[in-house]
């Protein structure tokens, strides 16, 4: 009995939870070896990331970015494309956003400035993904290779653009100037004061909206049907009249646009300027989220919150426990990717045997 034959609830819930618990157990063991109590550490982590309202605000703030990068990787995966380039697309999306803001923030009121900046982010992200998509569709260049390369190109390009053109005169820090307030996103603490003074802003609501649209588009439209068919079996999709080239290009455009949108949360919601390397690996975390969330809207939401909580909780943990370095978050993240991505079917045979035994 393979993982394919397990009931849906088992693959959708039981396996991810088992994998997650395994990752946390290994993390606990390492914390124990570092000389700290795993139970106490977990308590600090949960308290700081979820129970404390302000901590929860930060968790959801980080999650808002991850939902978009997770969606970016997921939609490409639906078309059978492993887009490693969300990081670069998010970075270039940030450029589109910043250029729109720098050009217009003096002239436009907020209700026009914000949509224009969001459109700039989506457009630039989409364009950065278009070329790898085009090369895959028309020339057969493998998307994994091209998108990895495009990450490097994006990083170098942004380095040059920020340092040579975007640093305001007289400043040392490699970042753009501060955006005018018309380009600041409203914070959610205005509506929910209980969350305290955190950068959590309306991009979280936009992210929820994006999840809903993604779910409907992929599973309930004929476009999504064709997208999934092309991803699962391109031969059959061609037989069914699906244009494979068009599907690949459109999927990459949307994937890039979603990655670009991931830049909105931190740039317009928190820092209000664009700094060098502001993406901070969020695009790569999107890969983990897509794998762990199994490309399902609810899965993406939960994994994004989990990763947000790990950043928030891990940060506080390293402050409180002197033996635990701040890199712990990256370590736990790596474990989760290992268990939920690379070894996702580790427990499938055992679970299948267990279910079979119970039925017999």
């Amino acid at each position, binding site marked *: 009995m393979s993982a394919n034959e397990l009931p849906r609830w088992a693959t959708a819930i039981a396996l991810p939870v088992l994998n997650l618990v395994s990752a946390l157990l290994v993390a606990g063991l390492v914390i124990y070896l570092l000389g700290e109590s795993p139970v106490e550490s977990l308590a600090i982590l949960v308290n700081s990331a979820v129970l404390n309202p302000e901590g929860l605000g930060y968790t959801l703030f980080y999650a808002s970015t991850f939902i978009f990068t997770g969606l970016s990787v997921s939609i490409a995966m639906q078309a059978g494309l492993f887009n490693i380039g969300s990081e670069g697309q998010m970075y270039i999306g940030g450029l589109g956003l910043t250029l729109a803001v720098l050009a217009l923030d003096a002239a436009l009121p907020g209700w026009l400035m914000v949509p224009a900046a969001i459109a700039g982010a989506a457009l630039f992200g989409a364009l950065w993904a278009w070329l790898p998509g085009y090369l895959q569709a028309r020339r057969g260049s493998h998307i994994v290779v091209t998108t990895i390369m495009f990450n490097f190109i994006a990083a170098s390009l942004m380095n040059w653009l920020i340092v040579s053109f975007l640093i305001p005169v007289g400043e040392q820090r490699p970042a753009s100037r501060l955006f005018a307030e018309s380009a600041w996103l409203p914070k959610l603490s205005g509506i929910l004061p209980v969350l305290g003074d955190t950068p959590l802003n309306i991009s979280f609501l936009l992210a929820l909206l994006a999840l809903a649209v993604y779910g409907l588009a992929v599973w309930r*439209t*004929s476009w999504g049907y064709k997208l999934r*068919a092309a991803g699962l*079996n391109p031969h*059959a999709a*061609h037989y*069914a*009249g699906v244009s494979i080239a*068009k599907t690949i290009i459109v999927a990459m455009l949307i994937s890039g646009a979603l990655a670009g949108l991931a830049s909105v949360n931190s740039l317009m919601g928190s820092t209000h300027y664009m700094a060098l390397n502001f993406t901070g690996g969020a695009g790569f975390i999107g890969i983990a989220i897509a794998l762990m969330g199994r490309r399902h809207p609810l899965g993406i939401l939960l994994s994004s919150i989990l990763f947000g909580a790990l950043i928030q909780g891990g940060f506080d943990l390293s402050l409180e426990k002197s033996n635990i370095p701040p890199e712990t978050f990256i370590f736990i993240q790596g474990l989760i990717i290992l268990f939920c991505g690379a070894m996702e079917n580790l427990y499938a045979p055992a679970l299948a045997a267990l279910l079979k035994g119970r039925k017999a």
Partner: protein
Amino acid sequence: MIDEFLPRPATGERIHMQAAVEFRQICKRFGAVQANAEVSFGIPNGSIHGLIGENGAGKSTLMSILYGYYQAESGQILLDGQERKIRSSQDAIKLGIGMVHQHFMLVDNLSVLDNVMLGNEGGFRLAGHRAAAEAKLKSICETYSLEVDLHARIEELSVGVQQRVEILKQIYHSADILILDEPTAVLTAQETEALFDVLRLFKQQGKTVILISHKLQEILDITDNVTVMRGGRAIGTVETAKTDKEQLASMMVGRPIQTELPRAPYRPGAAVLEVAGLNLRNRQNVGLLTDVNFEVRAGEIVAIAGVSGNGQSELMEILAGMRLPTSGKIDFLGKELPLRQRHDADGLPAEFRRLGIAHVPEDRLRDGVIKDFSVMHNTIFGYQDQAPRKFGLLDFKAVMERCTELLKKFDVRPADPDLRIALLSGGNQQKVVIAREIAAAPKLMLVGQPTRGVDIGTIESIHAQLLALRDAGVAILLVSVELEEVRSLADRILVMSGGRITGELKIDEFDTTKIGLMMGGMHKS
């Protein structure tokens, strides 16, 4: 009711020879499926033994148990009268059992010699052993008159020759019992004949052959005894000389099989499909189709007979819009199909479908279905843009209702629309594909190998559906490598060889020998 098809057991005196293999009460279960139930029969030494049965009857499981892939839950295997425990294929090889799988176990980029030596390299340094192996192989080739270039790489060889290499490998490993799983499915008539010559030589050497096949004619031609399996059980073993196709088919299915299906008199209507001067060349500029001309009219079934790989697949792909021809003209209902303005066929099948061309593809799992979609999702496959919708979203309630109806009408089992289609048997998957294409109410139906890998009971039902479609006035173009299928369905027969149409005959001129010659490209009518 089963008993009337049960033949009398072969008399004791005939099996006076020691049985090379004897199965006793073999049982094997996979989950809820009883794959083998109390299977008992013997295979006389030095004989060719046929093993037949519908898909899922348990033939492959039984052979896998003999070859050590699976362990039986209970029961015994006796080799030359001695009980043996076969725990792995290494055990089986040591006991002189060899198996030629349907899908070859060869390394494409190694030479024939290296493939045969693989797993038996004889030490760290290859060179010395290789010379000895080559000498031994040469002598084997002579004994069995197997013509193989030992230094050719596998990927350069035709399928028939690759199979010869597999057999060579088994003989080299001194197999006394050779199991062949559907060996002729990929072979031309000539290659099949050559294979059978080898098997006869093998038998003369006192060795034993177990042949799994769907083709009853071949079983009758070459075997000494046949064991029929159904539902995991060995239904009976008969002496080949004393049986016939009808009896074997009835034993396999468990009921009499109707060979002549009713059909309306032949009254073809207007031309639906007219193909003129069609050519197709591949990248190396080799002609795959050369000057193909024919027409198909409303209410007739035109069958293209031929050995597989002679251009039929390419022709069907062109007619379905999956591939562009190099040159030529195709008219559909008197209007030219839009081929000239295209650079590639990306998305073209959708246009052809809208015009009224339905297509049951030859390779069902590669082209016809999405394995990971449910049965319901697969019933709109290819017609996703015409599927019912509400507020711009697909209306799965309506799709489900339609699907439930189709499953009932076409007797798909189990009739569960939510099941992943990969979990259906091949025959039932094919019924879903045919149901979907017929439900699209086409003017022209392209059907490639509709009953490949499908069991006899389902073949009957698929044939009945196609004939009903013909009687309703649809033009049908059928490609089949099974002459039996061509004979029972076609109104007219075109024979293809080497990418050309080498002959045409009406169904009342059906003559296997003549068609065989045309298939070899040796006869022009």
